[in-house]
């Protein structure tokens, strides 16, 4: 009896704290004066209702403040603005700064640099990037490259707790921002090139205790499948698939890392994220669907149990690492209001699903030269492949589009409810790909492919597009010489913002794509623009510069140009494009306002 009472008391306290953390973030993300979660809101739309800056006056936008982060590797992600403080992060070594925007010159309130194991540097596949921090109830929550999860006091920068989520001696690293839901910080892991077995895990905001951990593959108890998993779409696969779709025990090194962007629907109480490529890029040794790699998952964030999972690229043979972001959009489909999820995958297809149960609504090519599959069969959910483009060990298969870097990489798209379009930076890259034999050694690279990457037909390597998710058709596109690896920002001022690897930050008319404004950055950008209202009531736009990421690694890592296979194909791609002639390393936050 006594014990029961104790349990109930604990539950009550837990529920109370859950509600307040949740309310805090739900309130903050609705306030467009602030930018309190990485993707602006749980629906991950990166849209703001602010409209001091409009299509009419954007020509007067000028840089009014800038700040060196002290790191010179690729800068992904975005700062946060909570109240009058801006939280700035950097590439490795993952400096965090709190900037006091109430004072002249925006001085530094505190700076924090985590103590890290530098061996993580040698096992981070695609530059030493970081996608930003999270805020809740007076604390900053962050991941580190070397696998720690850390809570800081947002006022002082002092550590509140830190725990270990990933182990770099096994090739596990962290570059993701994660997401706070209720009383938990949900994080994932990178390391799909090291034969890790990927997972997402939830940590208590209060004390860092791990509450649940759900693997991307393995027995159902590890993958955490709810009893009604995929009930609405049994043809997606239901139970035991996390082991039976792999030869032998290869699922144990099955990859499926989780380094992308997470979204959440508070009404359905579902967390959305997806898993990456299966372990070793050489498909010949893992014939089968390799579930649940390359899968969009919907999970209950309280328990981790999965309600549905949809695998986009079964038996991946191209490294179409499926971790890209999900936009949760309430759209009118065929006259019916529908809760949808939009996802632009590395494999070149833009998926629209019913996010209540995973049912496919549409899947169309957004990357125009996509040739590995003809189309996605909406009935079965499976791609109808072009057999000539399926790769294997010992043969170099040529001219596959998109390249392993994807029709679109991780740079998150934006959705504007004023135009009802999605805006995304995309790639026009193709590749030659040859699987090679590799042994699994814990902590050693487990890549198993040689990849050459080059521009697709047309010569331009990138594009910034507007996409109508209802008709599943492109509205307009702006060709760019380099892949577009910044996220997009849209505002009620009829504007869409994005940046380029050659260092331009641009604003275009969200309806027409007409270029309106641009500003030159000191280094190429692969980061995500944000907007907010400063203490002086003015609207600001902010973005990091700092070239890097997979494509920019040859510049960020100062690699020699002779080996086109180096950096998993990026050396050939980056030097082939002339990126080294237009930009150099950097790490700066730029803030713009109307003059």
């Amino acid at each position, binding site marked *: 009896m006594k014990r029961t009472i104790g349990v109930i008391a604990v539950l009550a306290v837990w529920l109370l704290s859950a509600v307040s953390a949740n309310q805090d973030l739900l309130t903050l993300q609705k306030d467009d004066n602030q930018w309190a979660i990485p993707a602006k809101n749980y629906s991950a739309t990166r849209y703001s209702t602010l409209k001091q800056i409009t299509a009419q006056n954007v020509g007067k936008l000028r840089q009014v403040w800038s700040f060196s982060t002290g790191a010179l590797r690729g800068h992904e992600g975005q700062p946060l603005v909570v109240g009058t403080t801006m939280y700035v992060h950097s590439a490795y070594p993952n400096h965090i700064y709190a900037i006091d925007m109430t004072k002249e010159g925006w001085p530094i309130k505190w700076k924090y640099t985590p103590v890290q194991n530098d061996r993580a540097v040698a096992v981070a596949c695609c530059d030493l990037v970081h996608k930003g921090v999270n805020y809740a109830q007076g604390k900053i929550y962050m991941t580190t490259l070397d696998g720690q999860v850390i809570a800081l006091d947002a006022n002082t920068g002092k550590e509140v707790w830190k725990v*270990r989520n990933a182990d770099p001696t096994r090739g596990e690293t962290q570059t993701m921002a994660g997401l706070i839901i209720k009383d938990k910080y949900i994080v994932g892991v990178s390391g799909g090139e090291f034969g890790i077995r990927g997972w997402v895990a939830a940590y208590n905001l209060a004390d860092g205790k791990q509450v649940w951990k759900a693997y991307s593959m393995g027995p159902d108890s590890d993958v955490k499948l709810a009893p009604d998993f995929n009930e609405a779409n049994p043809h997606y696969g239901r139970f035991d698939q996390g082991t039976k779709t792999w030869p032998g025990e290869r699922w144990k090194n099955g990859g499926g890392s989780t380094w992308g962007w997470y979204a959440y629907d508070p009404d359905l109480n579902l967390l959305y994220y997806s898993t990456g490529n299966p372990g070793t890029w050489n498909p010949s040794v893992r014939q089968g669907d390799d579930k649940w790699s390359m899968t969009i998952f919907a999970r209950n964030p309280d328990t981790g149990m999965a309600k549905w999972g949809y695998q986009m690229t079964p038996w991946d043979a191209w490294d179409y690492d499926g971790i890209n972001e999900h936009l949760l959009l309430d759209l009118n489909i065929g006259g019916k209001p529908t809760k949808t999820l939009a996802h632009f995958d590395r494999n070149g297809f833009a998926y629209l699903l019913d996010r209540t149960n995973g049912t496919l609504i549409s899947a169309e090519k957004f990357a125009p030269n996509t040739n590995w599959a003809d189309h996605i069969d909406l009935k079965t959910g499976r791609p109808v492949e072009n057999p000539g483009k399926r790769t294997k060990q010992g043969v170099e298969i040529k001219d596959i589009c998109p390249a392993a870097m994807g029709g679109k990489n991780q740079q998150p798209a934006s959705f504007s409810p004023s135009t009802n379009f999605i805006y995304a930076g995309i790639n026009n890259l193709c590749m030659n790909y040859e699987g090679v034999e590799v042994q699994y050694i814990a902590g050693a690279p487990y890549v198993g492919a*040689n990849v050459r990457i080059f521009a697709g037909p047309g010569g331009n390597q990138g594009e910034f597009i507007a996409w109508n998710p209802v008709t599943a058709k492109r509205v307009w596109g702006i060709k760019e010489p380099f892949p577009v690896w910044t996220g997009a920002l849209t505002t009620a001022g009829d504007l869409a913002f994005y940046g380029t690897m050659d260092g331009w930050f641009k604003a275009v008319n969200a309806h027409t794509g007409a270029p309106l404004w641009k500003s030159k950055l000191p280094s190429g950008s692969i980061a995500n623009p944000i907007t907010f209202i400063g203490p002086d009531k003015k609207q600001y736009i902010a973005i990091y510069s700092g070239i890097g990421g997979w494509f920019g690694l040859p510049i960020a890592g100062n690699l020699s140009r002779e080996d086109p*296979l180096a950096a998993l194909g990026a*050396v050939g791609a980056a030097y082939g494009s002339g990126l080294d002639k237009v930009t150099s390393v950097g790490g700066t936050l730029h803030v713009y306002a109307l003059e």
Partner: protein
Amino acid sequence: MTPTVRAWAAAFAVAYAASLATVSTQAPPPPPQAKSLRVCGDPDNLPYSNDRLQGFENKIAAIIAADLGVDPSYTWWPHQRGLVKNTLDAGTCDVIFGVPHDLESILPTKPYYTSTYVIAHRKGTHAVTSLDAPELKTLRIGVYANTPVEESLGRRGLVDHLTAYSLFFDPTGDRDRPVKLLDDLVAGTVDVALPWGPLAGYYAKKLNAPIEMTALPSEEGVPLSFSISMGVKKGNRDLKNQLETAIDHRQTEIRSVLDDFGVPLVAAKQAAVGAIQVPPEAPAPAPGTKAGTQAGASSDAKKNPFTDKEDGVAAGKKLYIQVGCQGCHGGGGGGGMATSLIDDNWKFGSDDETLFKLIKGQIPEQTMPTVYNTLPDEQVWQILAFIRTLYIGDPAKKNW
């Protein structure tokens, strides 16, 4: 307690960054004797060490000193936080026995043994041999705070059942000593204990305490076995090399001391998951084998027998892909996650011996994973022979 456990907790666990200042009233260190092995010893930390030289690390120190032809002399300082700063760094002594191989503040020798956390119970009661035993849910479990077994218990939802004991104690105070965990196990205050193996082994073997124990296997993300080295001041490569030669010479005697104290030894291979693996030529030889230097331990300059040999290069090319070099260093050696192998920038030097050691994981400052330490020497040389063919740097800079 061993600094293994302490340092592990300090270096990895939930270190709250706060400084647990070491308090000590130890007398100032005696002046170093000439021609002695100056050991930084813990005065009161059995089974490892005490000032009456009763610990197994004291015995091993005597063996190593004998091999070097000198006597050990001791500076006493508790093996707690502040140890390295106040001893090695302050120059009062030259070697700490029993440090975790990956302790960052020192230069480690190659490990001389690898042990593990264990699960221990009183004879005749609760014969639990695994963390997955269902009866654990009903038992009182004693652990040291901030040790990795805490994480293992947490994963199994067993944290409500544990009593945490402190690894750190103030030698001037009258608080519980770390050995209290084992005392409590014997007394029945806890049913099961999860200590670092050498402590439990000491109780079982040396003190004839009625306890039985089982080694705990490492699990994903939670290494439970650790390799133990001697630590010297960073940069003191001469002493490190001398100590390693002595370790090679004296493996049999070291093993015999460890056995006498009941230290549970595990193969370094099992120390997967984050622990540093022992180079194959390191400890635990079969009794009676003649200890000696094999390839990899010798400090003689080494040359690659396969350089420019067609067969060796071909074998190396195949291995370069198979064991994963290509993943980080590029299909053609141009780098990526790791540095380029084709130009003339070499972080630690470009000679055969340096690169051999780098692949073997023997350069303490290296960031390259040390997981290739079990690759046979011949294969390492073959891979190097292939890498040499990729070089496009200044021909004048070739030193191989």
